[in-house]
């Protein structure tokens, strides 16, 4: 009976897109049916230990009944973007209320490796309106692993670091049926959020399903102005299944379907009518391999992303256009550990094949004129094959990690039309290009009682992104220029040094952390005054170039103090700086920023007051479309309470963000679109164990 119910709801998954209301009904029906069969098993807290040696951060996203840390999140049903932004190391570039773009160490998409459970996914939007993080939701995830610089090279070639979004799985825990329903609302944008999960897990088999639906209207900025075109609607369903084939062998599969419609981008001239992703994988896990190898994990995956930009809701546009984009990725990885004396080795083979295609059709105001068509991503096929190896050597009280990634990346301009288009700019351009990517890193960690030191040096490089190498008249509304890719770009390289000193005693923890990137052949768009803008109203055309070198500095200080066992204070202060070889400021570099919070957690009750802000932006660059961003400080409050109902739990969270309704925008806000004003929110979660 149970399996029937579980299977039934699972089978509904693929049809959710068409019959959403039905499906949600069925899921909830299944959920409540399941209550009767729920088993009384204690909730196990997931404690995914990470190597201390990794500089980085784990952002816990998991639902509250799985991880107590969830309570720490001010707004449990906030978007993944808000979760990521709450971390002190990640910033988010905003073009609207939805699909923010993560920034780590002053670097965004093309310089980062963003993966979902190790799977490479590439957005299908030429204008970066769909970062990978927009195709999952908090309902899918247990945590986000953020690793800085080459410490993130395990996931892929990167400069700035890696963000790996870990899917939430029951993982053969003997819990039987369990689930939860959650609902949330927000005042500023009338957001309605409904979610639920239903899971069955025993030692032989697990099936996890979840669903989340969000709908938000335009939000209101501080002082009361409505931000037009900031609405969005999205839903996401996912399922994970695992079979234990034998004692030490497991077969797993995951599937995620994510779809957003009617997404407004107030900072951009276009909105999005559809952003859709199918993400699936099959995995094999074996405790041992050939005797001495352990934890052999292999995964095959595929994903398909469709992104359709739309300007039909905008009353005044110089020209109507359609801009669909597609990105399909097929990949695999296989990793295994080996422990030999003081050595802990990790070997990983991985590869992916990506196809990126995007086109633009513009409709002249004169209906008798032919539409104007171009390929903005000319069907680029990228094949990347890599090997990654790391060795963590334990000494007494300290350890050394050596790691390397070597990759071969081949790109192919598959479309003849697109190749001819690019050859307008690069007459001798060849269809194929092969690049070799290298990364080596050395990281040292030592424990000196209350103090801990962690430092390293590394070298890494990356291939230009599809837009950087092959983009064709991609309009960037931030600096109001069209961008042309450059297939002749050199790989961008970075020499990186990082250091972190931590102090910890019973009550106080202080981390002081800094890193420096010496970027060689830094890729950025530079104005080519000989070229004529394509987009009506654009100021000109930029071509991606390699700057000889650039410098990026990031410094942060985190502190935590337990005033009372129940009362904790945290504070963070960060400083970033980025300049090129000529001393010009690089864009999207944070001014001095700070945050502080006081949190009270006493059993079932929690409350927090938090503050964050930034100083006036001093180092900015109008050449890249930046203007000075003013200082701001905003405050938030939240209160949470857990109620036990039989063996089930009800969790209620109330709060208000931007308490004083400050009108502000940050350096990451595209075209200074103001942030949300005062916003009351409420979340109700009911977990059935």
């Amino acid at each position, binding site marked *: 009976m149970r399996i029937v119910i579980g299977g039934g709801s699972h089978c509904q998954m693929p049809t959710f897109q068409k019959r959403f209301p039905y499906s949600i009904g069925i899921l909830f029906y299944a959920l409540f049916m399941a209550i009767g069969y729920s088993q009384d098993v204690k909730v196990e807290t997931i404690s995914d230990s990470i190597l201390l040696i990794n500089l980085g951060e784990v952002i816990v996203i998991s639902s509250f009944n799985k991880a107590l840390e969830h309570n720490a999140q001010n707004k449990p049903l906030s978007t993944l973007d808000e979760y990521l932004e709450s971390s002190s190391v990640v910033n988010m570039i905003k073009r609207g209320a939805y699909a923010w773009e993560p920034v780590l160490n002053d670097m965004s998409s093309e310089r980062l490796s963003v993966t979902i459970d190790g799977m490479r996914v590439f957005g299908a939007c030429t204008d970066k309106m769909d970062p990978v993080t927009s195709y999952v939701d908090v309902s899918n995830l247990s945590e986000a692993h953020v690793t800085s610089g080459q410490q993130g090279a395990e996931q892929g070639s990167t400069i700035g670091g890696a963000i790996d979004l870990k899917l939430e799985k029951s993982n053969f825990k003997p819990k039987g049926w369990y689930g939860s329903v959650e609902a949330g609302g927000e005042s500023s944008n009338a957001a309605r959020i409904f979610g639920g999960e239903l899971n069955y897990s025993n030692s032989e088999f697990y099936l996890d399903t979840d669903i989340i639906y969000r709908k938000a209207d335009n939000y209101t900025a501080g002082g009361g102005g409505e931000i037009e075109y900031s609405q969005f609607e999205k839903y996401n369903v996912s399922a994970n299944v695992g079979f234990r084939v034998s004692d030490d062998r497991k077969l797993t599969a995951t599937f995620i379907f994510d779809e957003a419609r009617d997404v407004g981008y107030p900072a951009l001239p276009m909105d999005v009518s559809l952003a859709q992703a199918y993400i699936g994988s099959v995995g094999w896990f074996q405790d041992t391999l050939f005797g001495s190898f352990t934890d052999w994990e292999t995964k095959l995956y595929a994903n398909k992303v469709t992104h359709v930009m739309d300007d039909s809701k905008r009353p005044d546009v110089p020209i109507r256009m359609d801009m669909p984009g597609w990105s399909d990725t097929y990949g695999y990885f296989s990793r295994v550990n080996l422990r030999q004396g003081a050595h802990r080795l990790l070997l990983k083979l991985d590869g992916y094949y990506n196809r990126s295609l995007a086109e633009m059709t*513009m409709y002249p105001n004169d209906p008798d004129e*032919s*539409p104007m068509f171009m390929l903005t991503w000319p069907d680029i096929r990228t094949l990347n094959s890599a090997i990654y190896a790391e060795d963590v050597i334990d000494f007494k009280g300290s350890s050394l990690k050596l790691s390397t990634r070597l990759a071969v990346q081949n790109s192919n301009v598959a479309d003849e*039309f697109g190749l001819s288009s690019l050859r*307008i700019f690069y007459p001798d351009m060849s269809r194929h290009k092969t690049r070799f990517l290298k990364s080596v890193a050395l990281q040292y960690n030592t424990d000196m009682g209350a103090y801990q030191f962690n430092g390293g040096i590394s070298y890494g490089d990356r291939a230009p992104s599809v837009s950087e190498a092959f983009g064709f*008249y991609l309009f960037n509304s931030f600096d109001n220029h069209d961008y042309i890719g450059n297939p002749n770009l050199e790989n961008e390289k970075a020499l990186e040094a990082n250091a972190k000193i931590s102090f910890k005693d019973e009550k106080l923890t202080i981390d002081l952390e800094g890193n420096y990137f010496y970027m060689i052949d830094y890729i950025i768009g530079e104005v080519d005054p000989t070229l*004529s803008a*394509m987009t009506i109203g654009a100021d000109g055309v930029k071509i991606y170039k390699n700057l000889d070198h650039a410098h990026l500095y990031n410094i942060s200080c985190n502190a935590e103090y337990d005033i009372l066992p129940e009362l904790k204070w945290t504070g963070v202060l960060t400083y970033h700086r980025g300049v090129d070889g000529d001393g010009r400021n690089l864009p999207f570099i944070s001014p001095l920023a700070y945050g502080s919070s006081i949190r009270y957690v006493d059993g079932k009750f929690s409350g927090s007051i938090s503050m964050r802000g930034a100083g006036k932006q001093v180092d900015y660059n109008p050449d890249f479309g930046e203007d000075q961003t003013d200082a701001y400080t905003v405050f938030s409050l939240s209160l949470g309470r857990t109620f036990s109902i039989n063996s089930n739990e009800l969790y209620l969270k109330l709060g208000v963000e931007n308490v004083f309704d400050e009108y502000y925008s940050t350096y990451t806000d595209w075209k200074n679109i103001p942030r949300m004003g005062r916003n009351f929110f409420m979340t109700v979660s009911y977990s059935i164990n």
Partner: protein
Amino acid sequence: MKTFKLLLAIIIITSSFFSCSDDNDDVIMDENPLAEFTMLTTLTANSHAIEIYAEQDQFTVGYNELSLRIKDNDTNSYISGAEVSWMPLMHMAEMQHSCPRSSVLQGGDDAVYTGFVIFQMAGNETEYWEMTINYTIGGVEYSASKELEVNMPSDNKRRVNVFTGSDDSRYILAMMPMEPEVAVNDFSAMLYKMDSMKAFSPVRDYGILIDPRMPSMGNHTSPNNVDLTYDEVSTMYTGKLSLTMTGYWVVNLQVLNATSEVLKGEEVTDENEASSLFFEMEF
């Protein structure tokens, strides 16, 4: 005409018959060498039928590459080795004038004569083109004339410019036919000087500046165009035209004389959106 069609039908049927058979040797090649062309008109006189063919399906304002055959109606055969010349003449209310054209030459030995004519204007209800073909067969001179229907290109786009240069000469500038693509296209044109109402001479060693624009896209232009220069071999002005997208393009032109003085056409600037000399294309 009817016999031609009949003949054509027979040829097609027999050729298809042969091509279906296993026998893949020769035989069929007696068919119409202009089968892939459209016969635009036939001039009948002197028991000859002069058939004029073109790739396009009408006489078009601009450059027309034409092929013709002279059929002896008595023997039903095509005449090789004739000397052929032509004189297209525009009959206007006040005057008559001709247009730039090549001489007519027989290419190969298949009794096909080829040449080109650049019609600088279309006919209308009161003004019309008349084609006169003079030909000599075996020392005997013949002449045939017929009114032609010359139309604007089906897309109504400008492919020829007639202008008076700053040197007070009249010129005719015609774009060579092309299939535009989103790419760097080979682009060429022919420039003629009007020596008299009936005489036109090709102009050598001038220069033609090109500036392609999309009026619907804020006058967007493309990079890496190559201005047209005179090419001795083809006797045309050749260059490169970059088109960054499909749609409607205006190729603004400036004609320079041998000392690079502008004879006609204006530079496109923010203030001046278009030149008075231009070609158009849409794809």
